[in-house]
């Protein structure tokens, strides 16, 4: 290698050491930021890994709420919501809806009667190009108060230590309310009879900039008919999917979107605490489900019902869950889209 004409000064070694130190410092700062030096940091990867059942995750499927069926329909806004939020979705009118009925399990083949929590993913699109996505469950509150506690709960559930759940419940007494709900809330034979609750708190911003802390629920038009889990088990492993398909064939199914406004001082950062029943509510419109399609080739398959996909006029609050969910849902989505070969579409090219 030809020598440079200017011979390096005697301090060249010192300079090289300094350069190496600067470059190494840059690399270390990067590694720190990426969390490689902080094994205790709760990352989206860890959260999603913790959701996996003992046999490993179902490749190609959502890492939670893995069993589900797509629906399409419309949302008819009645205009009442414009008093709370400037989002176009509340201006009187009809907007396309694309959603997914689902079960709160990481196992896409779980028998319907074995899954306590039922959910609904919803996307409403407005002509201004904005999307509102939400994922709701039939429980009226969340089992735990923080994302970290949810992670700890998953670890406790997966733990071999027989006392893990007891220890967890000792540290997180709020979990008792979920146990109570799971025992006492009636089971129904249809997604159409479920009330789905957004649970997390968001901020609605109206045209003048006024902010209101809110939660929302989809309240079914159909009258819930309690059925015992034993009777449900006799209807077969996929009865919910079959029932909703037949039911919607017979006629569209409806839910009212009800927005609950917090009183000053209501806990917005803790979804394990339901707000009192007397809070001001506004019925802002009606979701009409018109068509059911299997997930495998359906339009909801590759949608991530990330609760932070919000139109302007709705924003996140001090509730830490939407951010944690967004991070974890994205990771789940990244993984499952990379595993599509493990969950092949039946009709290639039949996708809209």
């Amino acid at each position, binding site marked *: 290698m030809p020598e*440079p004409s200017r011979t390096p000064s005697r301090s*060249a070694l010192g300079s090289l050491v300094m*350069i190496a130190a600067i*470059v190494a410092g840059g690399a270390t*700062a990067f590694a720190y930021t990426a969390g490689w030096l902080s094994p205790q940091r709760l*990352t*989206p990867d860890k959260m999603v890994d913790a959701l996996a059942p003992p046999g490993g995750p179902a490749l190609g499927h959502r890492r939670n709420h893995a069993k589900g069926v797509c629906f399409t329909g419309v949302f008819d806004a009645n205009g009442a919501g414009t008093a709370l939020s400037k989002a176009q979705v509340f201006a009187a009118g009809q907007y396309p809806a694309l959603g997914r009925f689902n079960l709160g399990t990481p196992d896409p083949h779980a028998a319907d009667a074995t899954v306590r929590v039922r959910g609904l993913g919803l996307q409403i699109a407005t002509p*201004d190009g904005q999307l509102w996505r939400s994922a709701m469950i039939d429980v009226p509150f969340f089992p735990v108060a923080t994302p970290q506690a949810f992670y700890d709960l998953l670890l406790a559930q997966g733990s071999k230590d027989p006392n893990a759940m007891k220890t967890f419940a000792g540290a997180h007494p709020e979990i008792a309310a979920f146990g109570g709900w799971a025992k006492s809330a009636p089971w129904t034979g249809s997604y159409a009879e479920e009330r789905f609750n957004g649970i997390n708190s968001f901020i609605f911003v109206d045209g003048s900039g006024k902010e209101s802390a809110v939660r929302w629920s989809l309240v079914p038009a159909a009258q819930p008919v309690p059925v015992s889990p034993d009777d449900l088990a006799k209807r077969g492993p996929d009865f919910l999917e079959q029932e909703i398909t037949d039911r919607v064939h017979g006629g569209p199914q409806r839910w009212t979107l009800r927005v609950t406004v917090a009183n000053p001082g209501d806990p917005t950062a803790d979804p394990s605490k339901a707000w009192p029943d007397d809070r001001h509510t506004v019925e802002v419109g009606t979701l009409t489900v018109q068509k059911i399609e299997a997930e495998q080739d359906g339009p909801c398959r590759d949608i991530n019902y990330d609760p932070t996909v919000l139109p302007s006029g709705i924003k996140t609050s001090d509730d830490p869950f939407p951010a944690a969910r967004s991070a974890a849902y994205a990771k789940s989505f990244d993984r499952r*889209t990379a595993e599509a070969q493990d969950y092949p579409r039946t009709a290639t090219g039949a996708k809209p």
Partner: protein
Amino acid sequence: MTMARQHFTPLQRLLHWLMAICILAMLFIGVGMVSTVMPKYLTLVSIHKPLGIAILVLALVRLGVRLRDGAPALPADLPEPMKLAAHLSHYAFYALMIAMPLIGWGMLSAAGYPIVLFGGVHLPPILPQSDGLHATLWTAHYYLAFAFFALILLHLGAALFHAFVRRDGVFEAMASGSSAGGVAPAE
């Protein structure tokens, strides 16, 4: 005329240092955001997208300026392999500065996410929704990000090598507008 120039033009230097800050910020924001479930996740993501698109715009402007204004010649005594490495790394930088944002934008398009810059300002999707495309682009964004950072470390090491060991004016060509060679005056 450009052949005799010993410095990058002020506009080129402005773009270089401004973009260096933005790109380093992007890389740190990128790896930081995907490693947390805290509320700052949303804040970081909401910076990552518009800043990435700003880098795309700046990179295209910079490419135009570079094609128009050229670059000062490297020192004649610089060994050929080093010259080649310098030129190849600069091509790679331009490719990455333009490709990374496009891949990010394409990845969000293929995932069917809205591409929010700020408030109600959205970009249109540049690709159809597709799980396969999303997975491919995600992989590309991931690995190219690390390649980008590695190249920057190499580039940083080389720049400092020119500044403190070779003292051949290459560092000053980008660092300052006056006195070639010698000690770089702080800008």
